[in-house]
C-alpha cells in the first residue's frame, strides 16, 4: 500500500506535466483535462497496490483518456435529447472520439504547446506564472498561493480567469508561428526567471515552499532546453539559474539574514550546480552572439570561478555589464555596471558613473551602493546620509537589518551629525 502510494506520488511529480499537456490537446479544455487526470491518479491509488504497471505514465494517460471518452459520450447523449435550438449553442470544441480513444497518439511537443499557451502575453503575467506552476509543475493552487503570499481564493480566482480567457478568446494551443516566436519565447523565459526569483529572494516564514520554486524554475529551464535545443537564450537562462542557485546555501545566515557575495563562504557553493552552469553556458556561447540571459550567466560564471571576492575579474564583469547595457538599457543595469567599475577601477570611478544615473532616486539599492562607495572614499557623512535614505526606502526586513548594521559601523568611525534620528 505504502509502496503504491509513493509510486503514485513519484509519477505525479515526474509525469503530470507531460500527461496533462496531452490531455489538454485532446480535449481543448484545461478543466476537463485536469479533472480526468485527477480521476486517473485516484484510480491508481486504488489499483496499484495490487500491482504497479510497467509504464505508469502511459497507464495514467490511458485511464484519463477512457474517462474523457465516457464524459463526451454522456455529453453527446445529453445533447441529442435536447431540442434543436439548444443543440446549436454547444461549445465550439468537440473532440473527435476516435482521437481520444487512440492511446498511441502522444505528440512529443505537447508540453511545448502547453508552455507557450500558459505564458501567452494575452494572459495577465501573474496568471501566466500561476498557470505554468499549476499545469506544468503540478503544484496545487494552495501551494502557489502560499509561495506568492496571496490568499488561496485570490489565486484560485486568477487561475479561473486565465482559463476562461484561453477558452473565450481562443488562445491557441500551439507553438507560435515563426514570425511571433521571438517575443513569445522571451515571454516564456521571463516567466521561468520570475518563478526562480520569487524562490530565490525567499526569506523568513514561507522560505521552504518558496525555495521549492527555485527548483521548479530550474526544472522548467531544463525542459525548455530539452524541447527547444539550439535556442541559445534557453541555455543562457538555464546557466544563469544554475549559477545563481549554486550560492543558495551561502547567501543567508541560519536566522535568514542576507550575506552579500563578498562575505559568502565559498566552500558552501554548490560545485555540481556551478559545473553544470558553466558547461551549459559554454554550449550557449557556441551558438552565436550572446543575448541578455547569456551575458548575465557569463557574469555569474566569473563570480563562480573567482577563488575569493578580491580575486574576481571585475574588469571583465564591467565589460559584460557594458554589453548588457547596450541590449537592455535600464538604469538598474547601468547601476550594476558602475558597481563593477568601482571594483575594478576604484570607488571614485564608480561614483562618477553612479552620480550620472537618473531614474533610481526611489530605489534603495542605488543609495546603498552609493553609500558603500562614499564610505570607501572616507566621505563618511555623505555615506551615512545615503545609508539613511536607503533605509527609508527599503521594504524588506532582512535588507533593513543589513543597512542598519552598515550605518552603525560607519557611525562608530565618526560622530553622528546632531540632527540624526
Amino acid at each position, binding site marked *: 500500500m505504502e509502496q503504491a502510494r509513493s509510486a503514485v506520488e513519484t509519477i505525479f511529480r515526474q509525469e503530470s506535466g507531460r500527461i496533462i499537456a496531452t490531455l489538454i490537446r485532446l480535449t481543448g479544455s484545461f478543466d476537463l483535462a485536469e479533472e480526468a487526470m485527477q480521476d486517473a491518479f485516484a484510480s491508481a491509488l486504488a489499483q496499484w497496490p495490487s500491482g504497479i504497471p510497467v509504464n505508469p505514465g502511459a497507464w495514467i494517460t490511458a485511464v484519463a483518456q477512457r474517462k474523457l471518452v465516457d464524459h463526451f459520450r454522456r455529453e453527446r447523449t445529453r445533447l441529442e435529447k435536447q431540442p434543436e435550438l439548444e443543440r446549436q449553442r454547444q461549445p465550439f470544441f468537440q473532440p473527435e472520439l476516435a482521437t481520444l480513444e487512440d492511446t498511441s497518439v502522444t505528440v512529443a511537443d505537447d508540453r511545448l504547446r502547453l508552455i507557450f499557451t500558459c505564458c501567452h502575453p494575452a494572459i495577465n503575467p501573474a496568471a501566466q506564472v500561476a498557470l505554468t506552476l499549476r499545469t506544468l509543475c503540478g503544484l496545487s493552487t494552495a501551494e502557489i498561493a502560499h509561495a506568492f503570499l496571496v490568499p488561496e481564493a485570490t489565486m484560485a480566482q486568477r487561475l479561473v480567469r486565465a482559463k476562461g480567457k484561453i477558452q473565450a478568446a481562443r488562445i*491557441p494551443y500551439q507553438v507560435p508561428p515563426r514570425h511571433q516566436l521571438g517575443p513569445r519565447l522571451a515571454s516564456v523565459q521571463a516567466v521561468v526567471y520570475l518563478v526562480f526569483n520569487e524562490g530565490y529572494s525567499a526569506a523568513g516564514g514561507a522560505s521552504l515552499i518558496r525555495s521549492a520554486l527555485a527548483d521548479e524554475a530550474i526544472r522548467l529551464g531544463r525542459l525548455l532546453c530539452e524541447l527547444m535545443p539550439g535556442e541559445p537564450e534557453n541555455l543562457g537562462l538555464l546557466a544563469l539559474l544554475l549559477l545563481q542557485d549554486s550560492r543558495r546555501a551561502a547567501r543567508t545566515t541560519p536566522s535568514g539574514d542576507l550575506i552579500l557575495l563578498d562575505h559568502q563562504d565559498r566552500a558552501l557553493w554548490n560545485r555540481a550546480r556551478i559545473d553544470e552552469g558553466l558547461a551549459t553556458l559554454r554550449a550557449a556561447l557556441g551558438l552565436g552572439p550572446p543575448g541578455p540571459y547569456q551575458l548575465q550567466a557569463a557574469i555569474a560564471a566569473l563570480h563562480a570561478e573567482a577563488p575569493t571576492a578580491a580575486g574576481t575579474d571585475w574588469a571583465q564583469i564591467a565589460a559584460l555589464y557594458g554589453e548588457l547595457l547596450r541590449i537592455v538599457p535600464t538604469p538598474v543595469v547601468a547601476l550594476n555596471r558602475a558597481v563593477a567599475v568601482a571594483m575594478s577601477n576604484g570607488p571614485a570611478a564608480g561614483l562618477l558613473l553612479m552620480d550620472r544615473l537618473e531614474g533610481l532616486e526611489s530605489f534603495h539599492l542605488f543609495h546603498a551602493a552609493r553609500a558603500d562607495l562614499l564610505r570607501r572614499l572616507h566621505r563618511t557623512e555623505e555615506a551615512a546620509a545615503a545609508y539613511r535614505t536607503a533605509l527609508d526606502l527599503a521594504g524588506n526586513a532582512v535588507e533593513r537589518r543589513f543597512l542598519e548594521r552598515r550605518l552603525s559601523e560607519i557611525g562608530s568611525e565618526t560622530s553622528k551629525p546632531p540632527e540624526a534620528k
Partner: protein
Amino acid sequence: MQYMFLIYGSEAAIAASTESEMAESVARNQAVIEKASAEGALVGVGALLSTSNATTVRLERGIALTTDGPFAETKEQLGGYYILECKDLDEAIAWAEQMPACGGGCIEIRPMMELPG
C-alpha cells in the same frame, strides 16, 4: 470565430499629423481591407469621425438623457474598428500587427459573442 478590433488613438496627435502620414495610414488600412476581403475574413470595417461629433444617450428610468461628447473623456479615443473572422487569437494578433494604430495609439482585440439564430 469573429473578433472586433477597436482602434484607439490620440485625436490631438491625429489632427496634428501631416498629409503624408495620413496618406500612409489610409494606404495601410486599404491594404488590410483588401487582404482580409480576398481571404474571406472581412466581416466589417468602419472609421469614425472625431469625438467632437459624438452624442451620448443614457437611459434613466426609460427616459433618454442626451449629452454632447463621448461616453468618457480619455486621452485616446475609439477611432475605428474592424470585424474579422479568425481561427484563433494568434491569427487575430497577426492581423492587428498589420493595422496602423493612428496617433501612436493601440488596438484592442475583443472576441465576439456568438448570438443564436
